[in-house]
């Protein structure tokens, strides 16, 4: 890969060592790192869904076993924490969209709150739709 090549006897100037816990010193740094860490919980839930898919593919017994495993205290606790982090991800993601993507309509910039409101509206509609499909055929 194309990493820059450093000469061997590069002068080493003084640099303050930064602690691995630098992000605990300031609230907005902590928020930043917590937001970055949401990805771990996003991945965890993707794996849970993959596991569910695997269970359904195996048959009724495997699916019943999957449901039983989800009822264990350890997974319930983990899922609760995961839910909080995923919510944090969703909220920060929706609120950041207008900063990452500037939309112009007839030469005028669409106000940030319109884009944020659209995100939340889409969230509401899609959540309702998913819940409807999953709860319909019990």
């Amino acid at each position: 890969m194309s990493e820059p090549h450093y000469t061997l006897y590069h002068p080493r100037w003084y640099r303050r060592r930064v602690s691995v816990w630098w992000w605990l010193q300031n609230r907005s740094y902590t928020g930043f790192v917590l937001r970055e860490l949401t990805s771990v919980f996003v991945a965890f839930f993707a794996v849970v869904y993959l596991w569910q898919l695997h269970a359904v593919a195996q048959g009724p017994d495997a699916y019943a076993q999957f449901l039983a495993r989800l009822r264990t205290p350890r997974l319930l606790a983990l899922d609760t924490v995961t839910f909080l982090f995923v919510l944090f991800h969703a909220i920060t993601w929706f609120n950041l969209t207008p900063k990452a993507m500037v939309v112009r309509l007839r030469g005028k910039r669409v106000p940030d709150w319109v884009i944020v409101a659209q995100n939340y509206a889409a969230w509401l509609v899609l959540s309702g739709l998913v819940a409807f499909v999953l709860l319909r055929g019990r």
Partner: protein
Amino acid sequence: MMRRITPLLWLLFSAGGTVAALLFPVHLFLTGLAFPLGWLEAPSYESLHRLLMHPVTRLYLFVLISLPLFHWAHRFRYTLYDGLQLKHLTELIAVLCYGAALLGTAMTAYLLWTIS
């Protein structure tokens, strides 16, 4: 090679972040909390299986699982660089993160393809 696919990785990151933000809370609330705690009755095996027979459901599940995995791979990679100051392990971390996302994607595709 890394430089050429960086735009694609960014695209996967933001697409996966959007999918996770819009759809994960409801799925997680139902599957992780409401069903196990008995607030709502979990869908029966038959109804889930019936849903999975539909190609739209399969496509939906592929997107729902795969894209957020790439979102994780991209974001977690930078979390490790910045948070734990592991800049010197760039290549190893990139291979592990994107490799895991690719593996998860392959498993999802295989299951969705072969389920009957």
